[in-house]
């Protein structure tokens, strides 16, 4: 590792392994977080993401492996000597202390002058948009406001690392969306290195610089939100993020695959001819006849609409594709396309697949 990357590196996790009895929660996790970056651990419940966060915080002890923060090995340090602020799903605000005292909780302990503490508290409360909340008690505030107070408390001591454990999952949908933007903006402004755990993919994709997709104790993929969505490297990631069509196919060679009696041309050359594979393709990776005469495009297909699910601004059409021998596909249609193309049950719809978007994985997986 070069010296320059060590300088920009805030957190390094090396071969972290965690077992609870015979259950392995994490196996050989390696990860580096750059300074000022917001990294999201994303995965289904039980994938080990919260355990990993708690190991970084020192609230859980790893079975083996190392945690290196700002170049210092903190693997065996108790939480109280590590340098981080944390916000929990439950916020864990002290109910008997005012908002001011909650935010000042970590400051008072550092024997700072009262005026200095007060100035810092009002600075933080202004920062999170609650300048007048000081004398209130947590129970007098809404969930979203409590969340902001918890954030202010975690940031009060200017930690070099901010840990967020499912910080928005106790809020209702509207509030959650609003806070997503606020937290992200705050994090950018303070340039504080942040690790966030979530099971909500929208949250991860919209907030993170990099997403760490986890499953059953291992990291499946690390990448920018766009990369993990558009170029999943494992079937799990393709399946877990967004919706996906899975088609059984056989490799012909040269990026071409046979699905039923049809041939699909893709950019994926990984498989050997004759190999049984699965093609992963998102519902929106199709071209419809409103933008181009699709019959002349590569991977042109035709199908019969069996069902249309109306989902607000868009619809999902279940289509029996001619020549696919019963393998049904789901296609994404905007509400306007649904109307303009006359998509309804029983209608025939021509379309073309975007071959460059197809991901190919061996069928055994």
């Amino acid at each position, binding site marked *: *590792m070069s010296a320059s990357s060590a300088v920009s590196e805030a957190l390094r996790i090396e071969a972290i392994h965690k077992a609870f009895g015979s259950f392995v929660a994490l196996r050989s996790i390696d990860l580096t977080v750059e300074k000022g970056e917001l990294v999201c651990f994303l995965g289904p419940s039980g994938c080990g993401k919260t355990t990993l966060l708690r190991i970084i915080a020192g609230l859980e002890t790893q079975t083996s492996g190392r945690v290196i923060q700002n170049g210092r090995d903190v693997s065996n340090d108790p*939480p109280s*000597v590590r340098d981080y602020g944390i916000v929990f799903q*439950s916020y864990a605000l002290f109910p*008997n202390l005012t908002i001011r005292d909650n935010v000042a909780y970590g400051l008072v302990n550092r024997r700072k002058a009262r005026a200095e503490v007060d100035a810092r508290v009002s600075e933080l409360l202004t920062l999170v948009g609650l300048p007048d909340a000081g004398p209130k008690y947590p129970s007098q505030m809404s969930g979203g406001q409590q969340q902001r107070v918890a954030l202010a408390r975690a940031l009060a001591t200017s930690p070099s690392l901010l840990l967020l454990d499912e910080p928005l999952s106790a809020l209702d949908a509207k509030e959650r969306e609003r806070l997503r933007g606020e937290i992200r903006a705050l994090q950018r402004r303070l340039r504080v290195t942040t690790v966030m755990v979530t099971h909500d993919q929208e949250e991860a994709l919209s907030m993170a610089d990099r997403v760490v997709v986890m499953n059953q104790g291992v990291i499946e993929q690390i990448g920018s939100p766009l990369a993990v969505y558009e170029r999943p490297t494992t079937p799990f990631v393709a399946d877990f993020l967004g919706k996906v069509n899975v088609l059984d196919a056989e490799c012909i060679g040269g990026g071409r695959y046979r699905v039923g009696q049809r041939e699909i041309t893709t950019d994926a050359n990984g498989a050997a001819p004759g190999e049984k594979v699965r093609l992963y393709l998102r519902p929106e990776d199709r071209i419809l006849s409103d933008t181009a005469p699709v019959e002349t495009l590569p991977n042109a297909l035709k199908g019969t609409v069996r069902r249309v699910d109306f989902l607000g601004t868009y619809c999902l059409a279940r289509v029996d594709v001619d020549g696919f021998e019963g393998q049904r596909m789901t296609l994404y249609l905007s509400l306007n396309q649904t109307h303009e193309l006359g998509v309804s049950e029983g209608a025939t719809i021509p379309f073309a697949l975007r071959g460059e978007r197809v991901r190919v994985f061996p069928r055994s997986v």
Partner: protein
Amino acid sequence: MSTAATAPAAAKRPAGALSEWLAARGGIVMLFAALLVFLTLPLAMLFVRSMQDKTGAGVGFDNFVGYLTSPAFARSAGNTLTFAGLTTVLTVPLAFGFAYAIQRSCIPFKVLWRNIALIPILAPSMLAALSFIYLFGNQGALKFVLGWFGVATVYGLPGMVLAMIFASFPHAVMILLASLALSDARLYEAADSLATPEWRKFTTITLPGARYGLISATMVVFTMAVSEFGVPKVIGGNYSVLAIDIYKQVVGQQNFNIGAVVGLVLLVPAVIAYAIDRSVQRRQQALVTARSVLYQPRPVGARDRSMLVFVIIVSAVMLVVMGMAAYGSLVRVWPYNLSLTLNHYIYAFEDGGVDRSYRNSMVMALWCGVLGAAVTFAGAYWLEKTRGGDAFRPLIRAQAMMPMAVPGLVLGIGYILFFNHPDNPLNFLYGTMTILVASTIVHFYSSSHLTAVTALKALDGEFESVSASLKVPFYKTFWRVTVPVCLPTVIDVGRYYFVNAMTTISAVVFLYAPKTTLVSISIVKLDEAGSVGPAAAVATLIVATSAVVTVASLAAEGWLLRRTQAWRRAAQ
């Protein structure tokens, strides 16, 4: 790859972290050691001594064989089971009816009935026995009633069962009130939509919902009766039970080895009942989930009227029994000269040694209240909220629940055997106030511990993690957040210890010295001497003291919470 940027693993901890580490581990180790010395080792001594003769030579199971095959044992064991069985069979349905009326019907003055039912907790169990002697004894005002039931005398089984129902009733009611408190209204609505008759709703929804509470109440009442000492002592006559046999062996004949044997025998039904209760509770699923809609009873005229009549009768009997002892203590010569006098009180204080024992009891109860609340709450906190010392934690949990299965008499004998042993360096505690306080706290530790644990579990589990991340040691958060938030529970636990210390007799009857005699023991002494009036006076005095302290501490608690806990009101 180079790790040049990586500092060597932190070789030494900062001073703050070290003291925190010591405080967390130290608390756990101290709690473990205290439970070991004041609970487990004394009980272990029972096993050791039960297999020795008076000279300390090992005799294997000879003591057991000798005692268990004696006709005296067969009689006492049969009597004990009959007494406990009858008490249980009568108390639990009464308590269930009472709790059902309060939780599931629309009768007025529920708080009043509930408080009346709980009054006996403030009284030593001997009080009810004395009242029934006044009512049905040889000079009883209502002695003729016994004849209707073909009972010759109240002394013996009839009086014991009556007094024990009174003493155990509030404990059963509390358990059943809790188990009937929560119920999912949707179950009843679903039943209604299927046109289910009332009795079928009762047998298919209400009873199954309360069955764990019923089992628990049954076990508690049965265990109380099996190990009860005060009631048979006062009103048992010649009806021998195991609890009295123990007392005679140890106090009368100084036969500690046989006393240990009887103690272990007494432990058997208590441990079985405890095991049943625990296994049932473990199986109990949360019947009411966050999604449930709470059941609210709606008025049903006929049911509510009959429930009200039942509750009034039970409450009236409670008050009569309680009032009879108080009245009897004020009457010159019951039932011949009903003029009122304080003579019995004066006699108790001047000639019965109650001046000293009352002072001792107050001192002991205050210590139990303050020290017990502090130790129990701090112990529960260390157990639930700190990290490290993981090997000790299951051992502490197991020990904390043990007192629930150990009758006070058995604990008391264990204490004599352990602390009175000449080779024990803690021998100096024997005969002191300290040992009385320790035994009483240990005796009532389990339910106090559970109360504290429940309150702590209701707190956000991440408070300690947050303070650690803010570099605030956990004990500061304990003092600034945990204690203030749990203050009502801490005070409740203290009050529970105080009241029980005022009324308890079973463990301390073996442990008091002439200087440390207690007021509950004075009742036994006075009653043994035939001074029923002064005995009733002392019993009444205990109730009055407990009541005054309870009311005063509730008032003080209310004032304190209003002064210091603005955040509670803010929540509304």
